[in-house]
């Protein structure tokens, strides 16, 4: 599903955010990406979401080579991607329903289809009864769930999350992770960047660890610490 081949990212400031990272993530895998802040997690996610382009090396996602992606193709590429943000990035000038519907209206879905899919996604995250509310009145956990509903409403093959539990207490975090696990169970590839090592250890999934732009660990931590 995801293939990084000797990927290097050097920002214009001359700083190497990623150096020769190679990795492979299979379809329907669930993988955690961890590391200190500044280790290159965000850069890796930005490359994956075509916000940044690699300086060297190639990235292939779902058979599509991101190096060859023209600017005009980026929107279409992103439609196959579900992105969950740490600060959930909801729009407070519209209802929960309209927030979740955004990816669908962007890709030109019919009204009926939008209604059906948005309700299915909201039902999945347990917020169907709040579809008419403004997200600003929801709790942090609920807001994040709306963000997740928005990320999955397009039925993406790949779900990318950047610190999805960053601001949540352990119990809520656990709930959110449970949701990701459910999506993964039906075949969605899930990549979650997080620094919550305790939580990651409990999930018992594959972990990638970055340090100063290098991939220093790739495996399944059972008892051994990630780093």
């Amino acid at each position: 599903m995801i293939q990084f081949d000797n990927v290097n990212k050097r920002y214009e400031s001359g700083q190497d955010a990623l150096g020769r990272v190679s990795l492979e993530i299979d379809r329907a895998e669930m993988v955690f990406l961890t590391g200190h802040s500044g280790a290159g997690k965000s850069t890796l996610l930005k490359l994956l979401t075509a916000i940044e382009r690699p300086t060297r090396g190639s990235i292939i996602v779902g058979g599509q080579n991101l190096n060859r992606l023209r600017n005009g193709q980026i929107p279409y590429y992103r439609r196959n991607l579900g992105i969950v943000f740490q600060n959930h990035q909801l729009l407070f000038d519209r209802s929960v329903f309209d927030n979740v519907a955004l990816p669908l209206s962007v890709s030109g879905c019919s009204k009926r289809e939008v209604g059906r899919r948005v309700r299915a996604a909201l039902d999945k995250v347990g917020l169907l009864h709040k579809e008419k509310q403004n997200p600003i009145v929801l709790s942090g956990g609920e807001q994040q769930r709306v963000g997740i509903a928005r990320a999955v409403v397009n039925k993406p093959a790949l779900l990318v999350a950047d610190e999805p539990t960053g601001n949540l207490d352990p119990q809520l975090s656990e709930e959110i992770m449970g949701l990701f696990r459910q999506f993964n169970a039906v075949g969605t590839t899930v990549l979650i960047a997080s620094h919550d090592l305790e939580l990651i250890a409990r999930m018992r999934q594959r972990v990638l660890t970055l340090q100063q732009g290098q991939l220093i660990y790739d495996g399944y931590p059972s008892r051994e610490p990630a780093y």
Partner: protein
Amino acid sequence: MNQRIKPSPARTQPQAPERARSTGAVTARTGMGDRFGSWLGHHREMWRESWVRFFASPMSSGMTALVIAIALALPAALQLGLTNFQKAVAGWDGQPQISVFLHKRAKESAVTSFADNLRGDPLVAEVTYISPEQALAEFQQSSGLGDALIGMDSNPLPAVLLVRPRGSDSASLEFLAERLRASALTDSVVLDMAWVQRLANLTELGRRMSLGLAFLLALGVLLVVVNSIRLHIENRRDEILVVKLVGATDAFVRRPFLYTGLVYGLVGGLIAWLLVSLGVWLLAGPVRGLANLYGSGFRLGGPGFTYLAGLAGGAALLGLTGAWLAVARHISAIQPR
């Protein structure tokens, strides 16, 4: 429940080599007709939404529209005034007239045959013969100096031929006048053309000035729209970032702003038309009075429906262009970081 979220089969099958994959294949999940329908739907929705947004902040939108309206009403009023002026003088501009004053001793029969001769000339449209007696009678009637003439023992006025030429370009007029002058019967020829030229020049001057003004003010309108749309874009920055991240194309992001520019222009043009109409309504009374005093049936023509269509359409186009300029400059600068 899980089935509804399950990725569609098309997306879980092995992908073709990346070279063969086009953007079309990626987005083929929604049918072509469906996509066109929703594209149209988005246009409709943005059109509706831009009106909602316009009236959601009536003060700022209204002010922008009013600035546009005033800037457009000025040249529009000037243009209308010019049209009216041309209409008012239409009765006496087009046809220049050549007055041929004949020698006092010219025989009437010679004059008549000269006139007949002239009537056969291809350059001449009409010849009117005014005998000295007719001229005297007319002079007495119109000048009020009749009493002064009674004391004279002979008629001081010569016979006159009023020649209306067929063409009105100055070269052929001069040529005709020269020929008339050459006749032995002619005492003098007055080609009353200077004022015709003066009028034409004045009208042309007014037309060009109003065009120049219109151009400058249209530029002003453009800048006003660019600035308002820029503010709109800034206000909706977060939204733009989010929709770009969920796969919005630039066209999708641009659309609401283009419609907003269109609405600004349209409303501005409408108000401009109302302003001009109001002006005409206020001036119609005095103009009618003035025309009556000059014995003319002239009435001030208001900005009609075609004027409304032209003004609103032109303004809408200006609004759209301004929005394009703003959007082209500012939206591509907003990229997720």
